[in-house]
């Protein structure tokens, strides 16, 4: 790396300073790219060459339902996460740091706590006989326990819980980058708080909301643990289906095809997200 940056050749010019990336490149190439490509090839070669795995995937009502359910859950989780995260991020962006740091501490604690631990806690909390149902019944709000687990409600609560930090933290950055003077100017122009929110604050936060929301959506699409533990069998998600197809049914061809579909959707949305974030960066002064 030292030598190459000093060399002055046309080839050196193309590769100057790239040498030290070699170990990472080898590792990722050999143990990430190769296995993933091999898996994707398997989707068109296993058990025999052809597109029969994809035909099976899109031809079966069961699998199409899994796709639809995956999108539904990801969309609901993203929407709820945005609605919950925005006010929190807003307050964190302008709160006195003494209070704000307490909330930040709680967010970090929750984010760093083992994923299974958090999911386990929700499994216990949301059970038929769990604390939430008992509290609600004790307060007389409901007569019968609510079905909160092994269904969409359970998955949504558990996933929103996990995704919130990923939405709140970048949004705080977006909101802090907005000059409070702009909102004062809006007020002096005669805008009521609601008008200032709808016409200035919300549009100015939109790039952050879109980027964060897309990230949450992408992460939710491929999530495995929480849906598997909190969701029901009737609303299985794609990741769980892939794992099951490979692990229990040993149907590698079909599992690989489903993995490929998940990969393509994820990467396309990721590219879109990069573009959103990138546009915001190059937009600079905007």
């Amino acid at each position, binding site marked *: *790396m*030292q030598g190459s*940056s000093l060399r002055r050749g046309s080839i050196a010019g193309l590769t*100057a*300073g*790239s*040498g*030290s*990336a070699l*170990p*990472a490149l080898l*590792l*990722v190439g050999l*143990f*990430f790219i*190769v*296995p993933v490509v*091999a*898996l994707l090839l398997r989707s068109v070669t296993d058990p025999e060459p052809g597109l029969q795995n994809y035909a099976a995937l899109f031809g079966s009502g069961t699998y199409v339902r899994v796709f639809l359910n995956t999108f539904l859950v990801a969309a609901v989780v993203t929407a709820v996460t945005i609605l919950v995260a925005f*006010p*929190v991020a807003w*307050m*964190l962006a*302008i*709160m006195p740091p003494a209070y704000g740091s307490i909330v930040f*501490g*709680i967010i970090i*604690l929750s984010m*760093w*706590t*083992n*994923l*299974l631990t958090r999911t*386990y*806690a929700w*499994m*216990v*909390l949301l*059970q038929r*006989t*769990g*604390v939430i149902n008992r509290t609600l019944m004790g307060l007389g709000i409901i007569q019968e326990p609510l079905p909160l687990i092994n269904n969409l409600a359970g998955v949504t609560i558990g996933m929103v*819980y996990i995704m*919130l930090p990923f939405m709140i933290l970048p949004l705080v950055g977006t909101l802090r980058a907005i000059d*409070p003077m702009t909102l004062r100017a*809006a007020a002096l122009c005669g805008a009521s708080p609601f008008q200032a*929110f709808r016409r*200035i*604050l919300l549009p100015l936060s939109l790039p952050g909301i879109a980027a964060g929301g897309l990230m949450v959506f*992408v992460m939710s699409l491929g999530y*495995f*643990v929480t849906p598997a533990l909190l969701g029901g069998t009737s609303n299985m998600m794609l990741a769980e289906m*892939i*794992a099951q197809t*490979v*692990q229990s049914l040993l149907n590698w061809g079909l599992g690989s095809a489903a*993995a490929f579909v*998940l*990969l393509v959707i*994820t990467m396309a949305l990721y590219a879109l997200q990069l573009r959103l974030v990138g546009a915001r960066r190059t937009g600079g002064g905007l």
Partner: protein
Amino acid sequence: MLLDYDRLGWLRVALVGFTAAVAAFLLLPVVFIVLLSFGSSRWLAFPPPGWTLKWYEQLFADPTWIDAALTSARIAAMSAVLAVVIGLFASFALVRGEFRGRQLLRGLLLTPMVLPVVVFAIAIYAFFLRIGLAGTTIGFVIAHTILALPFAIIPITAALEGFDKSIEDAAIVCGASPLQARLRITLPSIRIGIFSAAIFSFLASWDEVVVAIFMASPTLQTLPVKIWGSLRADLSPVVAAASSLLVGLTLCLMIVTALLRRKLSR
């Protein structure tokens, strides 16, 4: 005025109340699980009929839990060291290098963070089955290093971008060799980034479930796999005890991080 905390009026009351509720929501499972682990009810009744340490006794009496924890620690430590070292070298290329495809390389090295883990898990599992690394510590470490690499590269490149290269050049002008300059000037300056990289890479491996579920063998189990198995079988309070210890570990990590950051940034 919407961004002036002092001038929000009644809106502030509503928003602060909402923020407090969300903070409580985020704290609830963590606190709950710790309380539960000391409860005496086998059926996880809450509030518990009495308080006990028996779940912790059962946990420590069961060698499979201890084994799983030690395995996890070993794999996470090795993965973190590898990820930080490889990530450090890669970061120099990504930040300082002037070659075509630098952005592409960055994208490539960060992809493992974006790709759904389940896709990578079955891919690497199939690959390791073929080359005989499935169910081995080496296989685990390789897979986890790949997953941890983005978490190492992001903070290190950020620190490196914030470091003024001319300081390193000044050291070289003063007679230090380029290597000496990097070791004695640059690395100490980006130590906060390296330290964050180490924490995040360790956590990335320590908490990893999906790859581990596929890779685990009856003789090689990480802690998350052990917990996963227990959760699928029943909701034993022993899991609550194990989980509480994990929460304790997280708290320790947070405190150490905060203290070290304060010390390092001085």
